[in-house]
């Protein structure tokens, strides 16, 4: 084994410290810096200089203080206790830090990532004599009311079970199994695994995307769906609703596990998530949402190096649950803050900047991050997925900046938030003309099997009405709407129904906040039926002013509020109403 390697600090510049000479430290190795044992990571090695980024405030460090290598890469502890918990960027539990250190986070706090004293009800699923591979499940622990934690053999280990503990209550560090490895040595296995955050966890193979991540948000599910195991970016200037959209997906999507990474965001927002998710009930399981959620909170005033790490910490936790066969969705809010942390550290290292001061490796880091998403066959043969939904905060709301542009290259779903929609309080302010989803074709099979064979056709018709509206608006801007022929006026009117009644969704309304695929489909059906009926009337020479006089448009717009989610038959009545409307108009004006 390595003897303790200790070196002395030579220079300090913000979160970066330098050591002189050949140190024998390894790349990405975790180190303890100074008397307070601040956590740091080796980020570059040179025959003269070793550079270390420190995950905590460096004020007070002196040249000459000790830096001790730990021998391991910066890694996370994986075991029961991750869910319903909140961690900082390097997996330190904020709840525990709060208990010991008060309201403010002091430096050099040393606490275990997970509760080591808690006894978990453990059910062993293997017997003596079985041969286990890396990833094999050997025990089950009900971690929260909603989620069963499956304890797995670490990926590189395999061997024959020679000893098994009976079912019972164990801590995460108790030995549950003894394996005899192929080379004859014995290895004790506990619930706990350690995994370096920058290394993707191994899987068997990758499946193509075929199932949507149903979010209950109409503009996403119907217009621009994301697949389970897919990647999406939500770019938007401040105040356009990035965080709100992510909260909505975290609350209502049909993923099993949510990993919410608050990377360089507001402290109050994290508090809000904690409070709200503790109270809100998961519609699927009936348990509090926190039971399926873990939060990584690295607020904007916490040290910048830990902000850079927080994304990887969250990703590794997500991959761990994926390996158990769960569908995991990661909300990364915001990847721009992470990119800026890279820029800040790169500036401190005096690296040659590329575009807008960002380091040249920005694109490769982003691609490596998004490629860790996917629907996978895990080592134990289960199917699990990690979907990544990353918010992007472009500088000045300008999508041509490097982070948005590079992200666009690596995600297949782009939900562009629009300032003018947000100003008009049209939420979600996802603009239907700038957004896209490449998953639409991959998912078409699922939609026709599970919703309706007509689903995609309807979706495309809605989309085409919206794009027709856009080109008509160009004319309206120049000459006003009054001069348009009636059929074009009708297109504008229906587009308005779609915008207000379908695309706009009220997150604070109990029925409208989350809408099933069935209701989404039927709403489209009603809107298109209205369109068809009105077109017939227009063809008969009825002017738009008469068509609008009966208030049917307002009625259809209000479907989202008027039809409760548990009474979808009501939607069929609307078609009858539209027929009645048709007859009435004919009667009155024929």
């Amino acid at each position, binding site marked *: 084994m390595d003897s303790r390697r200790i070196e002395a600090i030579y220079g300090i510049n913000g979160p970066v410290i330098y050591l002189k000479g050949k140190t024998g430290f390894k790349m990405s190795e975790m180190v303890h810096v100074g008397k307070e044992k601040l956590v740091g990571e080796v980020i570059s090695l040179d025959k003269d200089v070793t550079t270390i980024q420190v995950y905590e405030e460096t004020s007070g*460090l002196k*040249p000459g203080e000790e830096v001790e290598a730990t021998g391991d890469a910066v890694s996370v502890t994986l075991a029961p206790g991750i869910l319903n918990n909140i961690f900082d960027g390097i997996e330190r539990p*904020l709840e525990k830090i709060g208990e010991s250190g008060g309201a403010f986070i002091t430096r050099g706090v040393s606490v275990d990532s997970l509760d080591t004293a808690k006894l978990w009800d453990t059910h062993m699923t293997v017997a003596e004599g079985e041969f286990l591979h890396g990833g094999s499940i050997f025990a089950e622990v009900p971690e929260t009311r909603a989620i069963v934690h499956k304890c797995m053999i670490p990926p590189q280990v395999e061997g024959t079970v020679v000893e098994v503990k009976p079912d019972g209550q164990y801590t995460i560090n108790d030995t549950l199994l003894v394996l005899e490895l192929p080379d004859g040595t014995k290895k004790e296995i506990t619930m706990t695994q350690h995994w370096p955050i920058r290394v993707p966890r191994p899987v068997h193979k990758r499946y193509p995307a075929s199932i949507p991540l149903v979010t209950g948000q109409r503009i996403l599910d119907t217009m621009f769906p994301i697949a389970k195991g897919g990647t999406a970016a939500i770019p938007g200037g401040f105040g356009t609703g990035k965080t709100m959209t992510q909260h909505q997906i975290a609350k209502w999507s049909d993923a099993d596990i949510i990993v919410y990474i608050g990377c360089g965001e507001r402290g109050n927002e994290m508090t809000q998530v904690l409070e709200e998710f503790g109270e809100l009930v998961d519609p699927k399981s009936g348990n509090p949402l926190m039971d399926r959620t873990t939060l990584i909170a690295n607020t*904007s005033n916490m040290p910048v190096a830990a902000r850079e790490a927080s994304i990887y910490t969250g990703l590794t936790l997500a991959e761990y649950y994926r390996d158990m066969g769960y569908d995991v969705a990661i909300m990364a809010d915001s990847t721009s803050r992470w990119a800026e942390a890279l820029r800040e550290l790169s500036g401190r290292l005096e690296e040659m900047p590329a575009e807008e001061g960002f380091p040249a490796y920005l694109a490769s880091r982003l691609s490596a991050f998004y490629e860790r998403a996917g629907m996978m066959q895990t080592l134990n043969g289960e199917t699990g997925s990690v979907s990544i939904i990353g918010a992007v905060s472009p500088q000045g709301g300008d999508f041509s900046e490097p982070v948005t542009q590079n992200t666009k290259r690596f995600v297949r779903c782009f939900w562009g938030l629009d300032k003018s929609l947000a100003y008009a309080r049209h939420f979600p302010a996802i603009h239907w003309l700038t957004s896209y989803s490449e998953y639409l074709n991959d998912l078409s099979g699922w939609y026709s099997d599970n919703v309706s064979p007509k689903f995609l056709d309807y979706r495309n018709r809605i989309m085409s009405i919206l794009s027709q509206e856009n080109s008509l608006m160009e004319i309206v801007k120049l000459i006003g709407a009054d001069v348009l022929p009636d059929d074009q006026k009708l297109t504008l009117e229906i587009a308005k129904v779609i915008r207000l009644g379908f695309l706009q969704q009220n997150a604070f309304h109990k029925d409208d906040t989350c809408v099933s695929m069935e209701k989404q489909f039927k709403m489209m059906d009603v809107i298109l039926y209205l369109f068809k009926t009105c077109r017939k009337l227009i063809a008969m020479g009825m002017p738009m002013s008469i068509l609008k006089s009966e208030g049917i448009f307002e009625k259809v*717009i209000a479907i989202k509020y008027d039809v409760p989610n548990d009474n979808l038959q009501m939607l069929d009545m609307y078609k009858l109403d539209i027929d009645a409307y048709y007859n009435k108009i004919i009667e009155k004006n024929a």
Partner: protein
Amino acid sequence: MGIEYLGLSNINGPLVVLEGVQEAFFDEIVEFVVDGNIKKMGRIVELDNERAVIQVFEGTENMSLQNTHTKLTGHPMEVPVSADMLGRTFNGVGVPIDGLGSVMAEERRNVNGLPLNPVKREYPRNYIRTGISAIDGLTTLIRGQKLPIFSGNGLPHDQLAAQIVKQASLGDDSEEEFAIVFGAMGVKHDVAEFFRKTFEESGVSDHVCMFLNLANDPVVERLITPKVALTVAEYLAFECNMHILVILTDMTSFAEAMREVSSSRGEIPSRKGYPGYLYSELATIYERAGIVEDSLGSVTQLPILTMPNDDITHPIPDLTGYITEGQIVLDRNLHGQTIYPPISILPSLSRLMKDGIGAGYTRDDHQSLANQLFSAYAKVGEARNLASVIGEDELSPLDKKYLQFGVEFEKRYVGQGPTENRTIEQTLDLGWELLHLLPREELDRIDTKLLDIYYPSEEPLDAASFE
């Protein structure tokens, strides 16, 4: 401690380099004595073994490579804090300048502060009534929020901040202790004087603690001023259980100072020459607002920043907007029409508003009403664009109604007197009154049940009936 170093090896702008330093630590405060009589303070910003780069707060005038004695103090930047600081005036680094002697410190605190643990935060929910309709109705200020005013040179941001201070201090919870911490970075003498006079006139000056770094004061000092102010604010809020409103003006000068220092350190610039850590630095300031569990006090921040060239996409307002919980944007066009306060409604936003209003806080119709006003006003913009192309006469009757609504809204809802203090009911009722200018079917953001209460008649009123 105790060792004095004679001479310096380099002086460059606000930075000096000292070599052969023993036992110095990062972020340590040092004291200089120049020519045996002038005292200055500095902070170690970079350490390279025995070579220290030091930022001099008071500027490097008169310093030479020979005439300076440097002493390490052995502690990071600290300020004495005490409840007696209210009613006093200090310079940018916390030294009294009102001639009343030094403050008896109850404690000395590191100005850098520490990040507040999100699990120990309490989510802000209590709204602060400012008596200004555009704020109370549409961008409600919440206790514990950080809500900056984005302004431009020559716009009445100071007047608006002063009005908020005056009117918010006379809130309903008058038994709770309320105080103001005022931090000025690089402001003009007149502005500082304006605030001092306002505080005096409204009778709150013994509840104000002022930190003044004026436009001709040393630039580096500015980097510390907001931190000093917030350290005092945190002490008063979380130890003395007071509700503190922190006004920081002007954040642009703070960022400019950072750029100046960064460039003299030869750092690699990122956007527009600002250092890469501009976001982190701004965040450590703004994030120091909030409410802590088990404490009765709160820190609410109202930073003012002047947008260079009125450009909201400039790095300073841009990064600020990503950290703060909304923004109040002032508009030169409205100011030109002599509408006060010239708050540009559409880009203004309060993120915490949704949880601090509605039944139990203000009134159940507040959120829907605000959404409707926003969306109607957005349509006013569209109608105006159209009118500028085809002429007002050619507009459809509905668009004409929107134009009329726009004018009334700006004049009566946004506009109000600099001393006018409206109750929340007045603000909300005014909103409904204005919505009556529009036909009922245009109000698509409001639940039909609410409409039946507040807009029962099917017929819209004519503007004539107001006059």
